[in-house]
């Protein structure tokens, strides 16, 4: 029954959106981490979504999966602060390339998409409940 595929599709989208939200949380938390595990400043993480066939309907129902998590390629933010122990010989400190405004919009977008998918799932559930009630009235 094709309505069951809606659950799979919407839940895959919810998983993907929550991973995106996870990346946003990580980026915002580390917006000022000038040293990460590899000794370099933290680099912003971005998730890449990919449409993938899901369920038994072949091409018709496509869910979402996270293909990869990439490091943001933009250069680090250079801040002049000669007193900082991490400053280079010219007095500049390399800060993470996290764009806070971009991350906030990402966060809102992810949470809205998550909500929409919950609604789609609820609609499918209502439809299935009404299907079960056929012939009972």
């Amino acid at each position, binding site marked *: *029954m*094709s*309505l069951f*595929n*809606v659950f799979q*599709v*919407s839940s*895959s*989208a919810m998983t*993907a*959106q929550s991973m*995106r939200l996870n990346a946003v949380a990580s980026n915002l938390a580390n917006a000022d981490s000038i040293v990460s595990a590899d000794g370099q400043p933290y680099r912003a993480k971005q998730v*890449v*979504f*990919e*449409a993938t066939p899901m*369920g038994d*309907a*072949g*091409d*018709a*129902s*496509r*869910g*979402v999966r996270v293909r990869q998590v990439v490091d943001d390629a933009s250069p680090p933010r250079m801040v002049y602060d000669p007193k900082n122990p991490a400053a280079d010989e010219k007095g500049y400190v390399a800060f993470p390339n996290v764009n806070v405004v971009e991350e906030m919009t990402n966060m809102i*977008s*992810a949470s809205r*998409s998550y909500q*929409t*998918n919950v609604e*789609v799932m609820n*609609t*499918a559930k*209502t*439809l299935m409940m*009404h*299907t079960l*009630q*056929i*012939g*009972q*009235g």
Partner: protein
Amino acid sequence: MEPQMNPLTRDLEPLTKAIDLRAYRQQVLASNIANADTPNYKARDFDFKTAMHNAMAGQQSGGLPLVTTSGGHIAGGGGAGQPGLQYRADTQSAVDGNTVDMDTERAQIADNAIQYEILTRLISDRFSGMRAALANN
């Protein structure tokens, strides 16, 4: 069509075909919403009228019916296949090549859900009618 079809189910035939198509469409629309943030995803849908017409004629959309040249041949209509999906014309182009318009999809999913519920009621009403006819008082 089979010559001796149960008259009780014959009346239900168009309704069950329509509800199948509605369930299928719900899943296509759910895929569109799930992939609202997937780069290069193209929103898809199908024309309900054409799909319903093809389903009633017992042929797959785009498919050709088998030609019968002898009385012993079986008239194959390609089966009750799923309707062919088409890409939705995009309203506002996005930089990432995604053509999902959330407003359109939300409206369509609400519309489709209502149509589905109408069909469940209609099928229920048919059963009530049969039950009333079978009652012996």
